[in-house]
């Protein structure tokens, strides 16, 4: 992708994500801030280090049935409780099981990743219903392998911060497009 197209896509995604995070800040207990959006040709391994050296929690949404690409929300597993607390009010009742934080991350991923998907499909002038979000935990290397598809890739990596009660944690929303698709943008 040439640099003019990279900048066009970066701005489009930045606008969508900023609007989404602003709305999240107004309706959830946390303060959500976009830190950066990068569009670059590269390998998933580069972006998969976002969760740090330890295990990374991932929410994955795929797009098929037309343009095919992967998206994933990556976060350090140790930050999940904090991010969940930023997303869902503590007062929201819960029926017992210990999956509250996972369920919260699945919905956070659904929301944030669909901002990427909506913007990319709009730029491609295409439409597709994405997959149901899936949750998994992996080491960064395994994660990079799992996200790979037919190389080479264009990656879109958006980092955001969620803050509450003096604590902050970052997460990264990632889109991995086959270069053949990104060249259509």
């Amino acid at each position, binding site marked *: 992708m040439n640099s003019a197209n990279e900048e066009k896509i970066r701005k489009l995604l930045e606008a969508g994500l900023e609007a989404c995070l602003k709305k999240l800040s107004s309706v959830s207990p946390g303060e959500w801030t976009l830190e950066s959006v990068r569009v670059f040709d590269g390998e998933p391994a580069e972006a998969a280090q976002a969760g740090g050296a330890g295990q990374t929690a991932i929410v994955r949404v795929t797009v098929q049935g037309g343009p095919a690409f992967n998206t994933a929300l990556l976060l350090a597993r140790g930050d999940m409780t904090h991010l969940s607390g930023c997303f869902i009010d503590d007062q929201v009742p819960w029926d017992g099981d210990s999956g509250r934080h996972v*369920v919260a991350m699945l*919905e956070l991923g659904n929301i944030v990743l669909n901002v990427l*998907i909506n913007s990319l499909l709009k730029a491609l002038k295409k439409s597709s219903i994405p997959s149901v979000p899936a949750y998994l935990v992996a080491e960064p290397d395994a994660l990079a392998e799992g996200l790979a598809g037919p190389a080479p890739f264009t990656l879109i990596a958006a980092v955001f911060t969620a803050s509450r009660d003096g604590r902050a944690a970052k997460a990264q929303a990632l889109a991995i497009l086959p270069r053949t698709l990104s060249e259509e943008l």
Partner: protein
Amino acid sequence: MKVLIVDDNASTREMVKIILQRTGHEVIGEAGDGDSAIKAFADLRPELVLLDIIMPGKSGIEVLSEIRGLDPAAKVIMLTAVDQDAVNSDLLSNGAAAIIYKPFSFDDFEKAFSKLK
């Protein structure tokens, strides 16, 4: 209004329930997938369905069509993170009364409810 909430994510169903209860509505049922939603609609005959799109099994688009097949006057508001022009057009032309986009606020529900005839 008596409302059926359909969303595969339990945290979303809980948040929607709080909003509805605070605004004087009654949640008479919940479903986490398309088949359960259609059965709940047939059994409970809610005055309004709040319906997610991305769910395991049948999508909300298919569920909307089946519910409107059971009752052409059924009131359905979509609740989704999908915001694509072609999908939005399909939903509205297939009888959705409104679309609430995630993340949602109280105001979003009030605006959508004002579109119900």
